[in-house]
């Protein structure tokens, strides 16, 4: 008995009555709570902040920066906000599935305006808490209703948060080959080989465009092959589209894979985020779509999604969804947006080109083709961890250990310095 008391700090308070006084805070409920591991990307940012070198560069940031290195609020967003403010809307609860105007325009953006799926009303789209919230609802839905295998196959590598999200929802994680470090490109043979062996009715997650973290996307012909193999294996496809418009600058081009798969008969799950392509990061704007067999099934699925959502946050936030839907459904604003998202994508593409040009001017003889072949915010440079370490210590250039850089952190003002540093550690 005494040993048990010594071991359990929770029971200490029960011993004290003999002292005639109740100790106010004898022990804590949380003594056994472990300190959570530090976030690796946060670690990069912390080190960057401490660095006093005026030339320092933070290439860990997963948010767009303009050519002056500043956060960018889109003009269409400001205009939409002014428009919304003038309407003096109320703040009543949205429905569990969110703002209808938003869900509709969000789905239409992904699937296209003449989508057979939308015309036959055989899909359901709910507003979610950006991409993370969308993936989480999807994971919960799969965990509860997916009668197939509880395995979710992720590309290797994938966004760091995919695994914890699906795991926390009760799914098992597996992977398929994706990135080829030898070429810094797409491992088509490896991917097709692995996918062809995935047990039927498993879930396969695909990045629709601008793969995170590698920036490596399959070409259309490669997507077609992937679709065929997936069909043969009868897998359930879950697309994660966090960069529509942001990758190539063209929203239809970036949605090509999603639309192709639907045309090929895959009834997909789809997560969308408007964090990057509308710069609405902190407003948490996203959508989750399930393409169903028919309208009746879509209604049943919708009812169950609501049951999943209600005990998490009841209903989603209005502000960002209202901004996004105003932009998407107001022709002048939509037009401005398309121009702005193209400008962001173009700046990224330009920085990629400038980096390669500068590396060549530095005298680098390495093959940097992948820097311009890759697409989107991130670039897997191919740098090894010792080189990454040297870059941070000798040049104050910070990136994650896997050699991933956020091209959004590169500007015309610092791209030369970056090329210089990379050349020094790779020559």
């Amino acid at each position, binding site marked *: 008995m005494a040993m048990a008391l010594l071991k359990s700090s929770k029971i200490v308070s029960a011993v004290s009555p003999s002292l005639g006084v109740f100790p106010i805070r004898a022990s804590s409920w949380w003594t056994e709570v472990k300190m959570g591991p530090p976030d690796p990307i946060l670690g990069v940012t912390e080190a960057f902040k401490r660095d006093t070198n005026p030339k320092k560069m933070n290439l860990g940031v997963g948010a767009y920066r303009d050519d002056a290195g500043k956060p960018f609020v889109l003009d269409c967003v400001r205009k939409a906000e002014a428009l919304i403010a003038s309407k003096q809307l109320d703040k009543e609860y949205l429905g569990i599935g969110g703002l209808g105007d938003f869900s509709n325009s969000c789905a239409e953006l992904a699937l296209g305006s003449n989508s057979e799926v939308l015309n036959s009303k055989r899909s359901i789209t709910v507003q979610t808490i950006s991409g993370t919230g969308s993936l989480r609802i999807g994971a919960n839905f799969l965990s509860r209703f997916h009668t197939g295998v509880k395995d979710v196959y992720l590309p290797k590598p994938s966004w760091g948060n995919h695994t914890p999200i699906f795991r926390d929802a009760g799914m098992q994680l597996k992977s398929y080959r994706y990135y080829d470090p030898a070429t810094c490109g797409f491992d088509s043979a490896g991917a097709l080989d692995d996918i062809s062996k995935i047990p039927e009715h498993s879930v396969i997650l695909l990045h629709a465009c601008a793969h995170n973290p590698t920036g490596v996307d399959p070409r259309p012909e490669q997507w077609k092959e992937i679709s065929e193999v997936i069909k043969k294996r009868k897998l359930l496809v879950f697309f994660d589209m966090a960069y529509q418009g942001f990758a190539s600058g063209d929203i239809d081009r970036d949605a090509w894979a999603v639309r192709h798969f639907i045309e090929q008969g895959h009834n997909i799950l789809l997560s969308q985020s408007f964090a990057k392509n509308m710069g609405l990061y*902190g407003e948490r704007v996203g959508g989750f779509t399930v393409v169903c067999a028919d309208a009746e099934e879509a209604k*049943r699925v919708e009812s169950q999604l609501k049951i999943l959502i209600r005990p998490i946050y009841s209903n989603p*936030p209005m502000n960002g969804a209202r901004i996004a839907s105003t932009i998407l459904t107001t022709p002048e604003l939509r037009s401005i947006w398309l121009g702005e998202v193209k400008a962001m994508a173009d700046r990224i593409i330009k920085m990629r080109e400038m980096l390669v040009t500068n590396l060549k001017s530095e005298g680098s003889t390495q093959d940097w083709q992948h820097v311009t072949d890759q697409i989107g915010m991130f670039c897997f440079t191919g740098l090894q961890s010792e080189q990454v370490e040297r870059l941070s210590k000798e040049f104050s250039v910070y990136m994650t250990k896997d050699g991933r850089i956020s091209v959004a952190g590169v500007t015309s003002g610092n791209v030369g310095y970056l090329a210089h540093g990379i050349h020094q550690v790779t020559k």
Partner: protein
Amino acid sequence: MSLFAEVPLAAPVAVFKLSADFRDDKDPKKVNLGVGAYRTDDSQPWVLPVVKKVEKLIVEDGSLNHEYLPILGLPEFRSSASKIALGDDSPAVKENRVGAVQCLGGTGALKIGAEFLRRWYNGVDNTSTPIYVSAPTWENHNAVFAQAGFTDVRPYHYWDAAKRGLDLSGFLGDLEAAPEHSVFVLHACAHNPTGTDPTQDQWKQIAEIMKRRSLFVFFDSAYQGFASGCLDKDAWAVRYFVSQGFEMFCAQSFSKNFGLYNERVGNLTVVAQDPENLARTLSQMEKIVRVTWSNPPSQGARIVATTLNSPELFQEWKDNVKTMADRVLLMRAQLKAKLLALGTPGTWEHITEQIGMFSFTGLNPKQVEYMVKEKHVYLMASGRINMCGLTTKNIDYVAESIHETVTKVQ
């Protein structure tokens, strides 16, 4: 064959179905006493004047952007929100053992708290810890804790239908009988759906047993300020428990008292024994947030933080809150007076004894059905009415409807 062929059609959430039915009703006399949102005397939603003012400041502030908030939320929101609950001079705050997580409304705060408790409380991943919720309670309490993985969500005695008041002996009895370390979800004020709160003396009795029996305190505070019109008065129970040395959670919602329903502004206040335990607890909550919504929405938190951190705006907000609370109190007084004047059978003291947005009228399901179908007065099957649905224009009709219902239907 679709993978989702076997997905059943789920029943709609009752309170939203009620609103939908109300919307479809063509009767000009219809009254909606369902959903819990404030309405003006013209039956309109009310965006608080201070909120309008602050929103304008935000839209016009060119220096603000839409960057990600930290995972735990806007720091100036979290700290000021916790101070609202615990008081500016809270010793726990001064001792740096109070932390907070900005969440998606009160629901989100309950969710993060529940997920944390399931992982780290009473052992690791102990899903069998009993979770006690009041009988009755807000219907989503059950789902929040069940979805977080808890397998044993139980009721504790609360509402005494016969005397239309608090079943104190039943409540205290359940506290005495609960397994040690059970979690009790307590309504900080303006109990939903009954509107019946323990008195200060009764709270002291509750606290004494919870301390002695090592029961976990999880406050749900969705109506601070909205209940009595006074923030400090409505926070008395929460502050009393802190003064008694409890480590506890308080899920705060700013939906009603700021009228920010759709911006999802909530705060999970965590009171720990010391800063070190607090730090570890918050670090684990961060991990939970990351796999749920990554980081919270910024608009609503900005509005609240700006308001709470400015003396003039804070005062204006308090006035706005009192406006809402006072209208509710007036409707309570008038409804009771009219029922008494009509000679409606039964006792109606509870209408003015109860507090906050809701009142448990005592109407039974058959009477509720009559009210809805015959009188087009919409209320929950439990007999719960939202006092905010009453106005000087419809109160006579509602009183008459209740009178007719109670006399015709037993």
